[in-house]
């Protein structure tokens, strides 16, 4: 056998054996291929050969032994040979040792706990502390604290709205006065100067409010985190009991508690029906389906009826659990400017401080980074195709934003009423709403594809409740008929089931 330094030795060998009965003349000469790496059980191979060639049974023991030995030897030779090849590398070039040392130690660093950099395991401390607290007597305190912060933000937003509208009113007055007096006290130039000044003014004011908002929320978040850490420490020291319950809350201004709940809207469910279904051929799995007619953001807003704590309760308890809730929102290709439901969603998010995750803006900004990378690699793969084609498609994307239909990004939230995660599925909603979409949108449509990936992510990340816009649009148009609804709902249901 020759191996010729072939590194891709697949283990194929030929085994030779001469069957003899003691006399000089051999009965039969056997020669058959055997793969020393794959052979399952030598005895099975021997049995096959013996049956095929009708070899007398007294040969079996010896044949088994010989073949086993042959396989073992050849396998060991193969291993030895490969080991020698490896050693030869560093004997030929001892400088490679440094390279090997780097590669190998990196591998250990990335995969072994004891060799990994220590910072990795720290990031879970806050979530675990919170999860522990929210399932203890401290829950009440935390929720109250959250409510106070929420009210503070509400008040702030109301003030902001007030101040902005005041300014707008003032500007309008100034402008109308100026316009009325053009030619007398004011020239047209003056008016345009005024307009510029007003614009600058309002920008400045908005920026000021924005900065203040940021400051406020950051301060709240910092305080909140401190409280959680402090509570958690106290709990540990005092066997799951808090030192002084009201301490932290007294520090807050009592007046804040009274607030006008400006953001909460009561938009209940107008129709609702529930089903329990069993899926699966042999082993059945049970699923609950809840069909309802409601605004998607119903799951995010706090409603008027009932205390905020009561609505927060469930969501807060399950935030770091294995039972998450999510909704799917259909959003635009453009990440920067948001329209429609995304805009409303943003307002809801900003109506209270996000204590656990980055703010929506920051999260979207990070998504944008990834999306840019993807877009780059997409355009690179396009270089192989027609150049003109590429240019036009790139232009298209520039105009329409960095995402394509069917992509989705996921934002995490701790301050929404019923959900922890929001899937933003990119879709051209206006087109999904047309009559033509009834035939265009099939199970191979990009949005449906995206939906499948959403279901996959949901199932692998412990998302137990997911709310889906069943008709794939947030608003109805006149083109939509009853038939249309039935067919679209069927398509989406089938996709989800799959």
């Amino acid at each position, binding site marked *: 056998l020759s191996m010729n330094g072939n590194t891709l030795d697949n283990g194929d060998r030929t085994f030779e054996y001469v069957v003899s009965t003691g006399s000089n003349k051999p009965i039969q000469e056997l020669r058959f291929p055997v793969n020393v790496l794959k052979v399952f059980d030598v005895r099975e191979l021997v049995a096959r050969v013996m049956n095929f060639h009708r070899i007398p049974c007294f040969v079996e023991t010896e044949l088994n032994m010989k073949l086993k030995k042959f396989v073992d030897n050849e396998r060991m030779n193969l291993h030895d040979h*490969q080991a020698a090849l490896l050693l030869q590398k560093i004997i030929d070039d001892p400088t490679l040792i440094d390279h090997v040392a780097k590669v190998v130690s990196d591998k250990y660093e990335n995969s072994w706990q004891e060799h990994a950099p220590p910072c990795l395991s720290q990031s*879970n401390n806050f979530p675990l502390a919170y999860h522990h607290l929210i399932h203890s007597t401290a829950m009440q305190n935390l929720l109250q604290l959250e409510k106070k912060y929420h009210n503070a933000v509400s008040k702030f937003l109301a003030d902001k709205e007030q101040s902005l509208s005041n300014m707008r009113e003032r500007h309008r007055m100034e402008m109308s006065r100026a316009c009325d007096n053009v030619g007398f006290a004011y020239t047209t130039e003056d008016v345009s100067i005024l307009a510029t000044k007003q614009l600058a003014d309002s920008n400045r004011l908005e920026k000021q409010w924005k900065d203040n908002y940021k400051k406020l929320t950051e301060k709240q978040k910092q305080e909140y985190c401190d409280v959680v850490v402090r509570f958690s420490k106290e709990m540990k020291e005092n066997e799951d009991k808090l030192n002084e319950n009201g301490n932290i809350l007294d520090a807050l201004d009592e007046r804040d508690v009274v607030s006008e709940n400006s953001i909460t809207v009561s938009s209940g469910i107008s129709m609702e029906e529930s089903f329990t279904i069993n899926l699966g051929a042999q082993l059945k799995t049970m699923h609950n389906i809840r069909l309802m007619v409601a605004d998607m953001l119903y799951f995010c807003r706090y409603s008027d009826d009932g205390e905020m704590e009561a609505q927060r309760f469930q969501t807060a308890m399950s935030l770091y659990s294995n039972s998450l809730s999510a909704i799917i929102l259909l959003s635009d290709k453009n990440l920067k400017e948001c329209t429609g439901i995304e805009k409303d969603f943003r307002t809801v998010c900003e109506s209270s401080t996000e204590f656990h995750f980055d703010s929506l803006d920051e999260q979207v900004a990070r998504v944008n980074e990834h999306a840019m990378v993807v877009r780059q690699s997409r355009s690179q793969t396009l270089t192989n195709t027609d150049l003109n084609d590429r240019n036009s498609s790139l232009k298209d994307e520039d105009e329409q934003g960095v995402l394509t239909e069917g992509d989705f990004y996921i934002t995490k939230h701790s301050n929404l009423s019923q959900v922890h995660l929001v899937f933003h599925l990119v879709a051209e909603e206006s087109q999904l709403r047309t009559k033509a979409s009834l035939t265009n949108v099939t199970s191979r449509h990009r949005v449906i594809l995206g939906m499948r990936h959403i279901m996959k992510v949901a199932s692998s990340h412990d998302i137990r409740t997911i709310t889906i816009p069943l008709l794939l649009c947030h608003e109805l148009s006149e083109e939509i008929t009853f038939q249309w609804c039935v067919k679209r709902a069927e398509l989406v249901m089938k996709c989800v089931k799959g």
Partner: protein
Amino acid sequence: LFPLMKCSLGCMSFVTAALPHNQCGINGLPLTPNSITSLGLAQQLKTLKHENLCSYVDFRCGRHERIFAVSELYVDSVFNKITQPTELKQDDWRKYSLNIVHGVLNGLNYLNSKGYIQLNLEPKNILLNENGTPKLSGYGLHHMTDGGKLLSGPLGSLKYSSPEQILSCCYSEIPMATSSKSDVWSACIVLLELLHRELLWDSVENKSLVKRVLCLSANKSSHKNIEVLCQNFKENLSLNETDDVTKLIKVILENGLNVESSQRATPLQILNKLGKDLNLTNEQQPADTNGKFEKTVPSENTNPLMEMDSEEIWCLWNLAGGDMVAEVLRSVTTTPPIRTVPLFVTVHGDLYGLEPSPENLFNPGYKLLSLDTVESRLEVNTENISLIYPLLELKSPDVSHESAKLPLLIRENDFDYQVHRIALYRRLLLGYPYLRDKLLKEARIDIPPYCRGRVWAGLLDVKGDLEEQYINIDKDTPIVTDRQIAVDVPRCHQYDSMLCSPTAHEKLKRVLKAWLMSHPHLTYWQGLDSLCAVFVHLNFNDEPRAWASMSQFIDKYLHDFFLKDNSAIIQEYLVVFSHLLTFHDPLLSCHMQEIGFIPDLYAIPWFLTMFAHVFPLHKIFHLWDTLLLGNSSFPLCIGVAILQQLRGQLLQSDFNECILLFSDLPEIDIDGVVKKSIQVFCQSPKSSTFRVHAQKEEKCKRQTVSYYTEDYNTLPKTELSETAIPLSELKQEVCCRISADDLIQLCELKGSNNSKTPAKATKSGKPRIFIIDIRSSDEFSRGCVPGSFNFPLAPNKSIPQLVQMISKQSPKVVVVIGNKSTREDREFCFELLKEGLKGVCVLHGGIDILKPVGVLTVPSQ
């Protein structure tokens, strides 16, 4: 058998490497997660048993790709011996070290002989039991991760890795450089550490560790390596002494520390070299052997745990309320799922913005699973010693258990009850096949899940040198059905994490092919895969037993069902089935016939797979536990029981609704089906399920205890027996037929019958059988069956009145006797059925068949 030794259990867990999210397998199905692949591979490790190995007992697959491997665990390890001070003198210490490494090499050699390598040998992985015997642990990691491929990082601690192991970690294009010789290198490093009582290169960072090992490659000889390595220890150790122990140590080191793999010895080669002096090392351990001996002498307070093998202990640990997954996860910091969600996903399914989670990092440590609960609960049981050590031949004192009356599911999870059942079955299985009758008797109560595979094989009368037979079957040569098998297997009971692993697919294919090759006259019909899956699942590490059990099962229950042309067999089966349904539930049967919902539309997969295609595995187990005790007609009763459970829905449904209902069968209460089917079986005359195509001879004879233990299909035939009639004629029959000999037995016409029969369900009183003779009163008066009721057919006679009259007596069986030639009985029976009369059957062959026997009498007026 190994000396009885108390062991503990431990669990190590790791997360397998993630798969790309957007790919499909070549067959178009989703890729198998690595954790599942690993789970399948790992099963084989359970078969490794050696005194120098900690045996594996179980593997589980958790959420998020986590694998749990449970094995024996001992608290003490070689690591402790190296780091902790000892009282032994230098010479004794060397002897001790040599013994340890000798044991390690023995373990490695055993692994190698079975085709495994360890590749993560280190002092922490060499555990020591109470006697100080070294036991390798963690050796399965290499195999269950497919040589490390399913793990995201490398295996094994760097310091103990051989040069080729480190290099192959870097150059993946040369993947097969490691062998059992790599383990020898590790063993030698451990030996050096032991001798010096000091860890080599302690707290040296990885990069320089790699460099230090690889720099050894410049040394051509092992002497030089030993020298260099010894210089790295603080204490200077002289190996130049000439006593025997030092010589042997040198033999090991010189053969094991060669950089070049081809120059290094395998474990076996080293053991052979030590061989001639082996006695010497053992002789010098008198204290140890004595210790061992003392341990085996049963002491006054016996601990039953010591006598159980680790798998049994593991089974009890779970029954005692142990939750391994929760216990292990408590010690692992888990990232809440919300933090692991990706940030951005493209339409093609590529994930972006995933945060690394610390629990995915590999940690070779073990979590000790305490046996305290098991032990204390067993202690309570030792009070009643005969329950743990049951006597089989002598009548043991009342062994009934208070839980025996509870539902099966509770019994299966009752610790005390299972301890007793397992103990009993362990003895029964050891006595098999001699104790087969006792096994059958116990199986009527229940079968512990722990030993179901073996018990079933016993019930199916599997015996002989199965392995030899199985090996001799050619399972490699391609055959025509390969393609169909390849399509069906990855779709068969895939909700089960074990059965959806590639290992299981391979096993299923092999067992299926083995069965096809060993039954050349039979062929593969879709559904055989489901049948096979049940046996493969139960006998995962014993293909021969799976194959033999399946062969026996098919011979008994599915005789000739897998013929190339099986229509006659199936047709007959279905007709008999609908007759049996008519017998027990005439209204339902009439309704289904009326709407045209015949058994051909739904029952073929039921019977062709013996319900294995219809139910999930855990339900099949309970169903078959009973099925295996019944005769070849029992499956028909199960079919009737299932229909009766759906009775309400069926009676209200039309044809389309029925089709819909059965296309996605609703949840069936399997315990209810089992109970009902036994009832159906007990109420059916045995000849009513006579089939021409049934297996004629029962291979496994049982002594006939009662009416029910006989399978009518296998009884010797006389002129009074049921005879074959053409299928077309059989289809015309409206209800089932009873044979003359059966009738005679039921009516006790030839002396009373002590055992229970369908007609005599209770001990008291006469058989509850009603015989209607529909011949003219003239013929009737000339001779009739004693006790029969003459009801000459006439158009004006009111059938409802008759039915009312019969119902008052509530007979179990209603036999209609007519003339053989005219067959007016069919019409008549149909009328009876429409009135909903249960238990109607026709005497096969009419009155004429009874004439020669002399049981007919002239009715007294």
